[in-house]
Each structure stands twice: as C-alpha cells, then as structure tokens.
C-alpha cells in the first residue's frame, strides 16, 4: 500500500498556447482532508481532471492510490465542477446506475443510495425525478452520487458552490464523516473559512503553479504577523514596542515592532500591572494569506 493517496510530480498541462498547470508538485496523505485553493483560472479543475484521468497530462508523473490515473476508478469518488444528473431519471435510478458503473451490485447500490439520501435529508425525494429538485438539493444529490460506492478517495471540485449555510453544514458534516471513516478527501474551494475549518493541509495554486503548500497550521504560523490578540482593549499611547493597533471584534490586534518578541512584550505588560484577560499570538486569516500571496505574486 502506497504511503500517499495522491502523488503529483512536475505536472504540466497545456491547452493550445494556454499553460494551465506547470511544474506542479504535491502529495496528499491517506486519511487527510486536503484543500486546493487558488483564484479563478488558477488550474485547480485542470489538475483535478488529470487526477481523474479525464484529461491526460502533458508532462510529469501522477499516481492516484498507488496507480496511474484511471487505474483505480472504482475506489475514487468525484464531484466535477461542471455537474448535472439525468434530469428525466428518478434519484434512485440515477444513483443505482452510477453505483453499477463503479462496480456495485444493484442491491448494494440501492441500499447505500437509500442510506445516503436519508443522511442528506433527501429520503422522501428518492422516487422523484431530478428535474423536480431545487439547486441546492441537486448539489447534495451530486455529492451523494460521488460517494455512492464508498470510495477510499473523494475528490470534490467546489462542493460548497450554491449551498445555503444550513446545507453547507450538512456537506461539511458529510466530509467530516468520511474523514472519520478513514477516507481521503481532496476539495477545491473559494470559501476560505470553510477550508480553514475543514482542511489539514492545503495547496494554493496561482497561474498553474504551487505558491503555498503544506500543513495549514504551519502556513498560518509562517504568515503570522508579529502581533498579539489581546482583550480587553487597552490604550497603547506612548508604548515604543507597538507599531500599530487594530480593533477586531471585542479584541485588539497589537502589531509589535520587528525586534520585539511577544514574550518580552507580555512581561512588560505584567510589570505595568495592567489587567489582561486574554493574550494570544495573532494569526492571519486564510483569506488574507490568500490575498497577500496572490497579490504579491
């Protein structure tokens, strides 16, 4: 059994004279939730399509579950970016057909379809046609379709697209549930808060290249400003250590001068006898990291 669920080395994909992906390297470990981020047109969907053997790579090596792309179709689930289902077919018919294509028996596909529809609250729609569903329901049905065969690896291209907060939560729970059952999940998204809440490791692609890659915690540490979050707010007039101050909710983010260590700053505060309820290292929200990196390129 290979160590990684996905291994990509030096991947390159061109469309005519558009270089969609270039020199891309990354790995996805087994059992982790991996996020692919990047602005529109960065090359996320292209990369995912290469992983799914829908597009052929122009250069580089790609291994999915230890084999070539397409070799393990039955153990991979996929939610495409461009998606839809047979409008004229009943939900259960569609799910059973897709399950059959993944190598399931009719009986087990039917059983699993019923269980999953129940889980996402579509049980009573099972015998209705897909054309009768709302957009969000459609979206949930698509996600169900992508995991009907209980795959070891699930690749979701923008799973939160078009979902209201309640249904986003349903999908998030579904993803966490998959993770709890030892599945590997790769998802692309634009909603940074969701990625932050879900993903353990991320890859940020820009112009077809990796610009950030690694564990989310490490990246956040790397981008952490020399600042602390403090509550309740205080008056920093006359403090040489403080560069500037920002109010955030009921707290303050205090940016320190480059040579000042937070630990020394805390010491000074305590020496001054000031009342502090909370004192924490400030982090940069992923959203901001994203914008910083993409704009700074």
């Amino acid at each position, binding site marked *: 059994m290979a160590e990684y669920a996905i291994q990509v080395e030096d991947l390159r994909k061109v469309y*005519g004279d558009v270089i969609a992906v270039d020199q891309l390297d990354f790995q996805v470990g087994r059992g982790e939730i991996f996020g692919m981020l990047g602005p529109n047109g960065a090359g996320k969907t292209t990369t995912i*399509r290469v992983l*799914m*053997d*829908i*597009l*052929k790579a122009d250069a580089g090596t790609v291994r999915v579950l230890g084999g070539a792309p*397409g070799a393990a*179709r*039955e153990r*991979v689930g*996929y939610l*495409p970016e*461009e*998606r*839809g*289902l*047979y*409008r*004229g*077919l009943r939900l259960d018919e569609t799910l059973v*057909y*897709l399950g*059959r*294509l*993944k*190598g399931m028996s009719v009986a087990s596909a039917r059983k699993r379809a019923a269980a999953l529809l129940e889980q996402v609250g579509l049980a009573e729609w099972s015998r209705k046609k897909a054309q009768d569903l709302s957009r969000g329901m459609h979206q949930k049905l*698509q996600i169900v*379709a*992508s995991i009907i065969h209980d795959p070891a690896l699930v690749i979701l291209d923008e799973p939160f697209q078009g979902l209201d907060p309640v249904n986003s939560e349903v999908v998030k729970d579904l993803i966490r549930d998959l993770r709890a059952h030892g599945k590997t999940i790769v998802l692309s998204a634009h909603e940074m808060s969701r990625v932050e809440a879900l993903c353990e490791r991320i890859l940020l692609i820009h112009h077809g290249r990796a610009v950030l890659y690694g564990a989310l915690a490490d990246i956040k540490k790397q981008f952490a400003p020399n600042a602390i979050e403090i509550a309740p707010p205080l008056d920093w007039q006359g403090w040489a250590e403080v560069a500037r101050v920002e109010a955030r909710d009921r707290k303050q983010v205090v940016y320190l001068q480059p040579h000042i260590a937070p630990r020394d700053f805390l010491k000074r505060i305590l020496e001054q006898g000031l009342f502090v309820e909370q004192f924490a290292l400030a982090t940069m929200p992923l959203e901001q990291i994203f914008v910083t990196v993409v704009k700074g390129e």
Partner: protein
Amino acid sequence: MRLDKIATIAWHEYVVNVRRIGFIFVTLLFPALGLLGLIAAGFFSGQMLSLARSQFVPPAKPAGIVDDSRLFTPIASVFAKGFVAFDDEESAKRALLAEKIRAYYVIASDYLATGQVTAYTENIISGSASTESGDLRTFLVNGLLTGKVNDATLTRATNPIKLDLVTLDSKGNRQGGGSFSFIAGFVAPYIFSILLFVSVFAASGYLLRSVSEEKESRVIEIILSSVSPTELLAGKVIGLGALGLTQVIVWLGSGFLLSGGIGALVAGAVVLLNPGSFVVAALYFLLGYLLYGSLMAAAGSLGTSMRESQQIAGLFTFCAVIPWFFYGVLLANPNALLPRVLSFFPLTAPTMMMLRLPMSEVPLIDIIGSLVVLLISIPIALWAGARVFRMGLLMYGKRPAVKEIWRALRNA
C-alpha cells in the same frame, strides 16, 4: 476495456431510451399506418367491389346466347344460371333493353370454322362481355366437347394449365419459382436494404442525442470518472444499436402480421435463396452502423446543444445519402465507374453497396474492397471519435474550432 461496464452502459441506454415517448411513437407509427392502410383498403375495396357489381356485373342476370351454329343449344343444365338461349337476335335485344340479361352473344353459324362470336352489351364501359369471357370460354369448350370425351378430359380442357415456373442458373440448377423468385431475389433485398439503412440512421440518431444530452446535462464527467471514453462509446453503440434493431424487428414483425405472413415468407426466402448476399448485407449493416455511430457520437460531443450537434452530424448523413442521388446511373448500370468509386469511399460505401447488391452481380473485388475500406476506417473513426469525444465533452458553452479538433486528434 471492462465488458461488465460496457454491458451496464448498453443496458442503461437501451432501457432509458426504449421507454421514451418519441421512440415508442416512431416505432409504432409504421405499424399503425400499415393497419390504417389495411383498414382503409379493406373498407374501400369492399365498397368499390359492391359498387362495381351493382354497376356492371349484376350477378343475378344471365347472359343471352343466340346460337346460329346450333352447337350449344339446348344449354346444359350446369350453365342454366348463367346463360339463357334466344331464338333470334331481336328477342335477345329486347331482353337486354328490358334489363333481363346483362349481355348477349351471337355465335356465328360457321363458328366451328371461324370461332366468331359477337357480344352485345348496353354500354361499352360495362365491359361485362370481356369480364365474363372466362365463363363464356368454359361454356363454349363445354358445349364443344360434351359427350365426345370423358369427364376428366373435359375438366382439363376447360382449365388446361396449372403453371409452375422454374428458372435455371448457368449450371442448370434450379433457382426457385417464377415471379416469387423475382420478389425474393430483387424486390425484397431492396426493401430490406432500405430498412437496414433506416435503422442504421435511426440508431446513430439515438447515439447522437444520447451523447449530446449527457453533455448538455453535464452528467458526462461523472460517467467519465467511472468508465473510459472508449467504454462509454462502446456501451452506447451497442445499447442504441440494439434499440435500432428493436425498431426494425417491430416493423418487420408488424409487416408479417399485417401481410398475413407473406412479408416474413419473402424475408425468409431472401435468406434461404441468397444466403451469401444476406450475410454481405448484414455485414454492411453492421459496419455501416459502427462507422456512422462513432462519427455521430463524436458529432454529439462537439455541439453545445442538440441542435448544433445535429447540424454537424448532418454532414455525415449527407455523405451517406449521396448514393441515392445517383440512382439513375445505378439503374442503368450498377457497375458503372461512379458507383464503383463511391463503393470504395468509406462514408458512401455502406449505402452504395446496399443499393448495388440486389441490382446485379457485383464484382467480388468491389465487395471485398469496400469491406476492407470499412474495416480499416472503423477503428480510425472510433479512435478519432473517442478523442474528439474526450475533448468535445469538456467544452461547455462554446463549440471547438476546427483547429482545436485537429489538435485533439494530433496530440495524445
């Protein structure tokens, strides 16, 4: 290639499409029209017949006989219903004008030497004299021979021929019987080839629609994450080919039922009398379907909508129809240069050969040549089809330019 996946796709395509209203409608349309035609024909022919009877052939009325030869009177009792003797023309004429008889025949006194009989009717159109001539003939033969020959000879003399026609081929072997062999050897294969042609295009039409619908509904990428494009193409070609075949079987079956078995008899005769050309026709059918099918599937993947795909596909259909334009040339000489050239061009070969086969002895080289051309071009079409298919399917909202299609074909 996974056969179980291909089978799953084929079955899915078949089941989903066989219950479409459009399919059911078209499939049942022909039998329904046939039935309607039959009912109408029955109704009108019944009416026409009774109309004709009342107009021209009142069956109750006998014909008059003025027998100047004295050979046929008195009239034998078996003919008493149909014929009445008159002593002279005057009384016969009066009876005709009084509409007591439908016509009268004057048999000349030198009948034995000349065979002269004059028929009189009230109006020319009635034509009753000629329509009744069969009866008259029997009457005359009977009158001439009664008492001179035995009954068996008499019966044979009135109905001397029960015709059986045997055609021999160049080696002197029997080829079958008469006009039936003409129908079996020429008309039926011709109808058959049209039928096969129609079903090839019906099936590749379904293929086109199925592909472009899956593209339009965006379901295609999910399918491609489970099967390879080649498996998908193969499954669709098989499933929808079976659908086309179902249609033909329904049409043939209803033809059999409506014609009271004659159609099936003829079709059976085609197979039995000419197994060689049947096998060849079936080959053209299969190869033609594979060729057009893979091209149609590719066309289906290129358009952004069904209508656009149909326009692209129209190009291929046009090629297939070209041989019909030269039907005149074909009738004059099925082995002329032009038909032969078109038989070697893959897009026109299936239609051309299906047309040529029943018409004459097609040179063996043409049959083998066109089959080889098809066998070579089908893998190419499938390969190119799957490639264009893969590219076309992922292009939403815009139709790929010729340049892009070319690139897809060149690149791996």
